[in-house]
């Protein structure tokens, strides 16, 4: 009976974890910088997630290049040359005969032009050739699906680049937003994956002890003491799919993002492994574990309700701090040209040729780095806030 009761008590443990969560939240909220960092990160992630939406609203995308509009300063408006406008209108009107005749019908009905008996597309184009400032308004008043689509083509004639354009005439704002997806995504993925590897290695070492522990920890310690960057350069410079084991993992080919994630994880799991092993070793010897064992708790119960909650909190801190670090490493490798390959934008590779253009457009060298800096400092503040929040010694009541 005692046994069953103790099990019941243990089953109620998740509720205790919830109140601990409340404590942590209350503590975290008091750390002003961490809270500010948290909301800033939420904002950045939201912007990254809604990248296509922002693209539709601003009428820009991350890929389209324009030779005539390179190195535009921030807040520039660009009008397309007349010849290109004509071409865009022609491709739009002649693309579908049905649409052209529908448009002509509406235009005639609104008494804006006359049907001359030639192809409907030519009549519409004649009307468009005479276009002036009033034309968009006239199209707007037609209020049909076709005229609105035509209006969208018009909207493309005048582009507004909030943060200017880069060396290929691409919109910098959109590239930064899509770069947020890549950089933040790589950072999160690397931090989570290395935590997973770390948990695996750390718990193996912590549980089994003996020679397994000795070997695994020797490896962990020697990897911690290595200068990481030269090693990462070696791994990043080589096509990883040529390696016997990794080749099968990377069957997708030379996807630079997957490769970068693997290289970064290879050299960043050690902290988590040490943390998990240390926690397991110290918790294993605690009185409450002994008590649980004496009450007949199984190993699995001890792991699930005593060890995991005690390891999870510091691990969360490690992951948060790890995201910032991974973003820095991604940026450094991409800056060196060994990380994410263009044209996929990432904050690091947007700085790749920043040095050659500091005379023409210094702002191009400033903005991506500023984003890296802000993001990493936010992750560090959030990690620090979490650390304070979960540390029972620092709880302020």
């Amino acid at each position, binding site marked *: 009976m005692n046994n069953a009761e103790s099990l019941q008590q243990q089953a109620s443990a998740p509720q205790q974890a919830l109140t601990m969560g409340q404590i942590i939240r209350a503590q975290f909220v008091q750390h002003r*910088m961490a809270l500010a960092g948290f909301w800033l990160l939420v904002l950045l992630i939201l912007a990254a997630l809604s990248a296509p939406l922002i693209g539709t609203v601003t009428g820009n995308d991350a890929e389209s290049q324009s030779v005539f509009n390179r190195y535009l300063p921030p807040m520039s408006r660009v009008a397309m040359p007349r010849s290109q406008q004509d071409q865009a209108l022609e491709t739009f009107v002649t693309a579908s005969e049905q649409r052209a005749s529908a448009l002509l019908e509406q235009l005639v009905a609104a008494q804006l032009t006359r049907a001359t008996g030639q192809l409907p597309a030519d009549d519409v184009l004649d009307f468009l050739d005479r276009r002036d400032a009033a034309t968009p308004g006239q199209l707007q008043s037609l209020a049909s699906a076709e005229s609105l689509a035509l209006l969208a083509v018009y909207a493309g004639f005048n582009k507004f680049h909030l943060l200017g354009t880069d060396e290929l005439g691409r919109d910098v704002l959109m590239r930064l937003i899509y770069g947020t997806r890549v950089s933040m995504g790589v950072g999160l993925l690397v931090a989570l994956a290395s935590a997973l590897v770390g948990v695996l290695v750390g718990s193996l070492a912590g549980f089994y002890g003996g020679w397994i522990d000795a070997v695994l920890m*020797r490896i962990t310690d*020697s990897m911690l*003491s*290595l*200068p*990481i*960057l*030269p*090693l990462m*350069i*070696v*791994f990043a*410079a*080589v*096509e990883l799919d*040529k*390696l016997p084991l990794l080749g099968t993992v990377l069957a997708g080919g030379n996807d630079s993002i997957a490769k970068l994630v693997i290289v970064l994880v290879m050299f960043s799991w050690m902290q988590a492994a040490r943390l998990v092993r240390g926690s397991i070793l110290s918790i294993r010897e605690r009185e409450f574990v002994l008590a649980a064992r004496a009450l007949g708790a199984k190993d699995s119960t001890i792991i699930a309700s005593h060890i995991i909650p005690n390891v999870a909190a510091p691990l969360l801190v490690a992951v948060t701090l790890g995201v*910032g670090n991974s973003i*820095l490493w991604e*940026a*450094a490798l991409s*800056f*060196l*040209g*060994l990380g994410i390959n263009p044209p996929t934008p990432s904050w690091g590779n947007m*700085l790749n040729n*920043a*040095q050659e253009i*500091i*005379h023409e457009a*210094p702002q191009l*060298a*400033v903005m*991506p*780095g500023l984003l*890296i*800096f802000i993001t*990493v*400092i936010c992750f*560090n*503040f959030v990690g*620090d806030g979490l650390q304070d929040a979960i540390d029972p010694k620092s709880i302020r009541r």
Partner: protein
Amino acid sequence: MSAFILRRLLQTVVVLILLSFVCYYMMSLMPGDPIDIMVSSNPKMTAEDVTRLKSLYGLDQPITVRYWHWLRDFSQGDFGYSRTYRIPVQEMIAPRLLNTLYLSALALTMALMIGIPLGVIAGLNPGSRFDYVANFFSYGGISLPSFWLGILLIIVFAVKLEWLPAGGTETIGANLSGWDAFVDRLKYLILPAISLMTLQAGVYLRFARSSMIEAMGNDFIRTAKAKGLSRFRVVWVHGFRNALIPLITVVSLSASAIFSGAIITETVFAYQGVGKLVFDSIVGNDFNMAMVSFMISIAMVLTMNLLADILYALADPRISYS
């Protein structure tokens, strides 16, 4: 103690050999051995010539055999020729190492002189306005991408203000000597050193602050205060000396971070150090140069780590490695 040092030394050598094999293997996966490059510049070469040359230079051997030959030559001091520079690797390495040494020594000194005093003062007054600002700077230093800081410094001090050179090691063809040469080198060192030291200064500040707080919380500090010792003596002789112990480890363990940073900084500033050499030779597939510069730099870092362990034991008599 000597048994401990011996064991750690042995361990370091094992790690070095393992790493050299990993690097050798990875480098051999890069497309193009010397003969392939020879063929591409001489299309008249026949397939038979290629096989003959490959067996002549041992390139048809399995990787383990080739590695063994390399290791044997390396341990005998034969580092081979650089493919890019066409000179023996030895001649290239020494001046580059010296350049990196100047850069990292300057950066380390600056980081220590900024990080530790600020950290100690912040740690003496935790929660004060100064502590708040110092903490913010420490986070800033840790979160700054050093290459970006380098670019910013170039934009401000080299392009806009034109105070300092944007990159390089020394004024080419100036043939200066004595004091002038020193000043000239220093001008080229300032910006890279600042961009290299920022991260370390942030780290040192943080550790100095926390270990000072911990040291000042000890019972013997209270006793020292109760004895009526001057504040200066309490802080610097009793507090700081104890705070120094963990700091020694942090500082000597930063060798690997400084070297990683040096690769980036030297590349940004085109500073002719060993970090740039490692990067250029690996990317440029300059096999011998890459292997040697990689091995020497890693050996240096590992030696620093070993030194850290020994220093730690010497600084803190409570630690014993028996």
